[in-house]
Each structure stands twice: as structure tokens, then as C-alpha cells.
């Protein structure tokens, strides 16, 4: 592993100030992404700022029903938190479907939001990759693009999927990301946080220079809703999604009163399917209507040489999730 300087932050302000003084500093929380990619020399850290001692480890249910999650709450803690299991089943399920027990024990909420893509051409450190080396090209577009490459939100610069399961659930629930930087605190809508690759795939999120995520705030749960996360993958465990769906459903008899749908494994960011939600609202949840909504969710999908199967698979991830929730 390359040599770097290590600083332990005693406060958010100190973390931000230290970060602003260095050219290539990274905040270190669980380390499951950062140290992996520093070892691969994909994230060329000259300095790591250990934020693990900051008091950002609380899960607070607020008076308006929203839930404020500290940046350092681990994936394990969040997944097993009583209020989350009870009111945000989709989030608990998504978290537990990701990574492994050991990694979830280390990985944090903010770290999961910030995790990097799993494209092998990004990770190998040598292939053309516009994310890692702007202007070098994208080896995935005509390369091995079967498993962790998207059909939605791609560009001619980058087609890697966002790998998080947690973020897919958060996109469906609705959330905001609280950050603190040199200019103070601000809040970013979760759907605006991750950016499409477009012509600047190296710009992955809406953070300004030196900003640190301090909390993620979940919208209050939808009353009388049921929710679930369905992840389809090559093996039964410990694998990134080929396609996944997070669905939150409020039913009135056989009629859909309200629905939230987000997808993973198919998009270059956690993919909220707003048009599919609109197509379901107020209709009877028949097989035909589910198929229609699923088709709308994948409308405009662009397949690459090895991942065209993701279009029907993504649709099935939605249909099966809806079916299971209403069984």
C-alpha cells in the first residue's frame, strides 16, 4: 500500500479543515472501499483523515417521523435497528443483501453512499477508464460489460452501475444527505446526490470540495405501507446485483393507493422509477398493470454487448417484488 499520512479528526470542523489543506486527502470511515482502492492505487491517497471518532453514530427518530442516521452508523447496526426493521423493511433487507457480515460490520452509512463502482476496468488501474483517468476512454463499452454495467443512465464515457443496495432503498424511501464543508452545513436531496456520468464520469456526486457527509435523513415512512427489496444476482449471497428493486406499496384493497419504486444493478446511479410509480397509482394491481409499469421503468434502456438481459431481468425484479408484497 502506498505511503500516506494519517490524521485522526476530533471534530467535523477539524476533519473539513484538514481535508481542505491537502491535495489528495480522503475521509476514512469503515475503510472497506477506501483501503481496497488505495491498495489498488485507484484512489491515490496522500493523506487519510480518520473520522471514526466523531460522534456521528446515532439513529434518531425525529418528531416529524423522519429518521436521522449518523454518517458512521454501520450497515449492520442500521439493518438491525428496531425502528428500521419495523418501518423501513426495504432498507433493512437491502442492507442485509449487500456484502458480507464482516464488511457490513465495518461499512458505514456515509461510506456506503460514497462507495465506488465495481467495474473491473476502473479497478484494474491500467485499462482506459474515464472515471479514473479522464479522457482515457471506456474499456467497458466494448468489453466485458455483463454484470456490473448499466442499461439506464449510461453515456459514451461510462456505463458502470452504482453498486449500492442501501442507496436503492434510500432512493425509494426518499431521503436527504446532510453535509458540512468549509462554507457550513447544507442538505442535498438524495435523488440529486449521485450524478449521471454524462461527459464527466469522474464527478460522481454533488459534494463540493472538502464537504463531509454527517447524516442521512430518511423521509417519514408512508402510512400503511409494505416494502421489500428483491436482489437478483449470479450467486445466492455476497454478490453485486445484476438487477434489484426496492418497492414500497400502499394498497387500498386491490388498488394501488401509492407506490415507490427504485432499481439497482441496471442504472449508473440508484435509479428511482418515477414514471412506473405514476403508472401504478390508482390502478388495480393485475399482472398486466405490473408488466406495464415494469416496462415503463426500463423504457429508454440501452443494452450493451453482454447485458441486454438486464432489461427483462430488471422488469422481472419489479414484477416479482410487487407480486410477493401483495401475496
Amino acid at each position, binding site marked *: 500500500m*502506498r*505511503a500516506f499520512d494519517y490524521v485522526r479528526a476530533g471534530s467535523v470542523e477539524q476533519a473539513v479543515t484538514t481535508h481542505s489543506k491537502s491535495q489528495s486527502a480522503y475521509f476514512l470511515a469503515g475503510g472497506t472501499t477506501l483501503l481496497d482502492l488505495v491498495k489498488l492505487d485507484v484512489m491515490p491517497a496522500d493523506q487519510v483523515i480518520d473520522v471514526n471518532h466523531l460522534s456521528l453514530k446515532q439513529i434518531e427518530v425525529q418528531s416529524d417521523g423522519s429518521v436521522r442516521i449518523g454518517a458512521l452508523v454501520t450497515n449492520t447496526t442500521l439493518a438491525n435497528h428496531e425502528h428500521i426493521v419495523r418501518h423501513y423493511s426495504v432498507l433493512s433487507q437491502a442492507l442485509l443483501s449487500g456484502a458480507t457480515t464482516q464488511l457490513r460490520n465495518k461499512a458505514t452509512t456515509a461510506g456506503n453512499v460514497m462507495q465506488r463502482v465495481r467495474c473491473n476496468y476502473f479497478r484494474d488501474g491500467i485499462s482506459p477508464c474515464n472515471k479514473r483517468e479522464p479522457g482515457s476512454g471506456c474499456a467497458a463499452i466494448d468489453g466485458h460489460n455483463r454484470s456490473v454495467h448499466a442499461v439506464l443512465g449510461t453515456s459514451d464515457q461510462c456505463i458502470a452501475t452504482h453498486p449500492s443496495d442501501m442507496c436503492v432503498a434510500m432512493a425509494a424511501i426518499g431521503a436527504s444527505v446532510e453535509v458540512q464543508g468549509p462554507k457550513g452545513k447544507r442538505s442535498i436531496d438524495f435523488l440529486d446526490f449521485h450524478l449521471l456520468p454524462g461527459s464527466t464520469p469522474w464527478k460522481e456526486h454533488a459534494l463540493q470540495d472538502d464537504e463531509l457527509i454527517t447524516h442521512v435523513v430518511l423521509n417519514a415512512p408512508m402510512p400503511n405501507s409494505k416494502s421489500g427489496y428483491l436482489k437478483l444476482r449470479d450467486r*445466492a449471497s455476497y454478490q453485486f446485483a445484476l438487477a434489484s428493486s426496492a418497492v414500497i406499496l400502499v394498497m387500498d384493497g386491490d388498488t394501488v393507493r401509492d407506490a415507490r419504486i427504485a432499481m439497482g444493478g441496471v442504472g449508473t446511479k440508484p435509479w428511482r422509477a418515477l414514471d412506473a410509480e405514476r403508472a401504478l397509482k390508482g390502478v388495480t394491481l393485475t399482472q398486466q398493470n405490473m408488466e406495464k409499469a415494469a416496462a415503463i421503468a426500463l423504457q429508454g434502456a440501452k443494452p450493451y454487448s453482454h447485458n441486454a438481459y438486464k432489461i427483462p431481468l430488471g422488469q422481472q425484479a419489479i414484477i416479482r417484488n410487487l407480486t410477493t408484497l401483495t401475496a
Partner: protein
Amino acid sequence: MTDQPDKNTEPTTSGLTDFTVPSRRNFLKSIGVSSLAAATAPVWMQAIEAQAAVADDTDAPARDERRMTLKVNGQTHALNLPANAALLDVLRDRLQLTGTKKGCDHGQCGACTIHVNGVAINSCLSLAAMHEGDEITTIEGLAKNGKLHPVQEAFWEHDAYQCGYCTSGQIMSAVAVLQDKSIGKDDHSVREAMSGNICRCGAYKNILSAVQSARIKLQEVT
């Protein structure tokens, strides 16, 4: 606790005691890399003794080092270590605790699994500097009073390994899984909870048997 192998009298049915369980490490030690005494003490005791013999650093840290205090298996060590030292490498190379294995070095195989404050983590994806003040436990720290942990006994009894390289990580995960009330007791839940420990030999069936049998052993203890 009636089905545990008796360490003091007769060899077990396999004809092997823990003194003579063949392993590359034991073999190398027994042919003269170490003394005769080393071949007659259980391997984990040799490791704990080696760890105890590691002297604290007394010099000031070099320019690219930090002074760190790490508590491992109940022993406190004051060491001068580079800022980028991975916890796994410090355990193996500085503290001589080579029971924790380096497999992929990227959090993908689980061979390096240890406990930090009772929680299983991949030590390859941690810096030593992140763990000052934490209680670190490695495979060598599981045995108590010269007696193997029930999970270690169960792995032995169920032949839950072939080459053995992943075994200490499997055992550390299993101990944590059995302590975690949020993980189900059924086979499916155990398989899922231990999916971060890869066994290239494919000893999964026996590993699962060992974990479930250790669950019963642990209930008998309490």
C-alpha cells in the same frame, strides 16, 4: 460437555492429538526450524508465547511512523508503525500472530477475519492506527486456560477443513455468528452469515455441521 477429545490421555480416533496435528507450520517447526519443545506445545500456545515475547518499541517513532498502542488477545503492545500499516500485517509480521491469514488482501475472502470489540471484521481493510483502544482478538486468543474454544473443538471433530488456510477466519466468523442474536439459528441463516468466508477446498458442508454443533456445545456451557 462429554464429547470433547481428551487432550491429556489417549490419542483421538484419528490417531492425532493437538500436539501432532500435521500442518506445514508444525512440520517445518518439528524438522528443526524451532526447538523440540516447540513441537510439543499446542500451536496456539506457541503463538501466544511468541506474541508475549514481542518487545515494545522504546525508541521514538521514525519520521514516517506513528507510536501506537494496540491491545491484542489481552496483551498491550506499544509499537512504532507506519501510518499505512494494515492491521492484518501488524498482527502477522510484528506480533507473530500468523494464525490470521492473508488471502485476497481486499476484503473478499474472509481469511483475515478477527474480532474488534467482539465484532468480526476483515483485518486486511483496517489500518492498525484505527484500532488504538480497541480490544482485538485473533484466533490465538480464543483458547482459554489451555483449552480450545468450543467452536475450535467442533471444527476439529467435524473435519471442517481440508487445506486449513481459511479455517481461522471461518472459526472467528463462526464464533461471532453464534454470539449474534440477530442472526437466525437455521442452516440457511448460518450459510448466509458466513458467506464472507470463502473455502476453496469446498468444506462448507462440514463447516456448517461444525457451527451448528458448536451452537449446542455453547448452550451446554451456559
